[in-house]
């Protein structure tokens, strides 16, 4: 992989990742394209610019950790891992098929380079705290990033973890909320509204950054600010668009858990050309 800080180069990687997401979920005929597409800039900025990692050494003790707490967005992570060189690109289209390393949700048994097996919502932030505490005990300077879904933070355990992380000043931890405003049953604000979201995290003792989650320079700046923030954990509330990059998928509740048809794959790939 070639790391880069250039927003234009990162944007071009994002496009490639989006093409993978469309073809993978299209081939699988199931999966979660919408919430994968919304998180592309976040994941690409982390893997190609921000995070310290080395695909040749997935067990490097000092690597930064990434946990996809919203495990159903596995396609975005698989596409990134494959493009980085951790896993084969050729088999991405075996997503969700029997025997594939690209399981329906991230499964560490099949991909050892994953930091954790995830899929049951609400649990990844606590896992990330555990890794961040281990770093502190071992006097290592790696950072832990946890990508949360917006609907996911309706889970009570998120707030147990939020309380713990600030109380224990876990400042080597950064949570990112992919705030795409949609969950399976519809719009988050109609299912169980999260607002005022930034105020909630501030009240729980976190440093809060709000940004457009598709704005790569803003993400780069925010991750730098998070790393520089001492004494408290940082949460980045990333306002995103579900289905981002594919016109007919954008802001459509349908594509939370429905794969594109072959015709839709063709249309989407044209848009992402």
């Amino acid at each position, binding site marked *: 992989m070639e790391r880069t800080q250039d927003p234009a180069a990162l944007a071009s990687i994002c496009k490639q990742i989006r093409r993978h997401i469309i073809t993978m979920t299209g081939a699988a005929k199931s999966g979660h394209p919408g919430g994968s597409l919304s998180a592309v800039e976040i994941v690409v900025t982390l893997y190609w610019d921000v995070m310290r990692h080395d695909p040749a050494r997935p067990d490097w*003790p000092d690597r930064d*950790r990434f946990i996809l707490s919203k495990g159903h967005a596995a396609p975005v992570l698989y596409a990134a891992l494959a493009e980085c060189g951790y896993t084969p690109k050729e088999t991405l289209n075996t997503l969700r098929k029997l025997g594939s390393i690209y399981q329906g949700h991230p*499964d*560490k*048994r099949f991909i050892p380079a994953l*930091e*954790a*097996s*995830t*899929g*049951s919502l609400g*649990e990844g932030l*606590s*896992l*990330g*705290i*555990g*890794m*961040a*505490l*281990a*770093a502190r*005990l*071992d006097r290592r300077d790696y950072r832990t990033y946890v990508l949360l879904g917006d609907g996911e933070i309706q889970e*009570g*355990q998120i707030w*147990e*973890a939020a*309380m*713990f992380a600030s109380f*224990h000043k876990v400042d080597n931890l950064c949570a990112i909320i992919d705030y795409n405003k949609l969950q399976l049953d519809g719009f988050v604000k109609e299912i169980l509204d999260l607002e005022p979201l930034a105020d909630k995290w501030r009240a729980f003792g976190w440093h809060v950054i709000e940004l457009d989650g598709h704005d790569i320079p803003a993400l780069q700046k925010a991750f730098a600010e998070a790393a520089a923030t001492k004494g408290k954990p940082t949460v980045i509330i990333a306002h995103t668009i579900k289905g981002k990059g594919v016109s007919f998928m954008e802001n459509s509740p349908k594509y939370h858990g429905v794969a594109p048809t072959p015709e839709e794959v063709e249309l989407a790939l044209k848009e992402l050309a």
Partner: protein
Amino acid sequence: MLTAAKYEKKLGAATREAFGRTLLELGRENPDIVVGDADLTKSTMTTYFAKEFPDRLFECGIAEANMVAIGAGLALAGKIPFVSSFSAFVLTKGFEQLRVLVAYPNVNLKVVGTHSGISIGEDGPSQMSVEEIALACALPNFVVLSPADEVATRWAVRWAAAHQGPVFIRTGRPKAPIVYNSDAHFEMGKAVELVPGSDVTLLATGLMVAEALLAAAQLESEGISARVLDIHTIKPLDEEALERAARETGALVVAEEHLVDSGLGVRVAQALAKRCPAPVEFVGLHGYAESGSPDELLDKYGLRAANIAAAARRVLARKA
């Protein structure tokens, strides 16, 4: 090996106390041992570890699900975490996290439940764990240990720390009757034959082991030779010892401080059905208990030597 008549019930340390002391020893030996607790350090006895290693004891407050998941994160980052709370809370409120973050990816977390069974006493059913064997044994990759006394607990905690993979250890609140000499030897997955016998086998775990020994003495005085096996490892079960017991004694009794519909007894029956069907009687709980002293509760809910001996007589009557 004992002869049944020679067993004298003397109280030793509580198994939770033995857990706390052993954890402290382990902490001194290995800096990677870390501990999570949920506002019960003075009850789970992780307090000894907390006092000496405050930086390695993560007090999670009353948030068991978060504690289990943080423990999983620590394990994934190379630590050897023990998380502890009352069995009634850590296995229930943390079950989903144990399932997805620990059992399924086979993560190296050690879970110690204290205040197991009804012998917690006065606090009553909301704090009593009577479903824990069902819950812990439902989790693939978990080894489930249920030590009878202080010596067995010391072994169980040390074995868990050395083992790569998830372990659940069940411990109790009250002082536990001494079963073993300090030099006793244990093997994971191997039942201990405490008393030889040829007419009937008494299988017991945890606090019921001492009661089974007393029951064997009573039966001996009636001319019945009862074998006593301590099932300190509930999963994996020592199926060979069970098969041998079924073949050689032809009748069995299982005694446990747990609901009979989902505990050790059903696991024993499953193993025997596969290997060597034999009549079995089950001594355990049939529902939730109430407040009372541990001794009053064990009497009232039928978890005594007399109940085990009566079950032995029943099963002997069924023996072909």
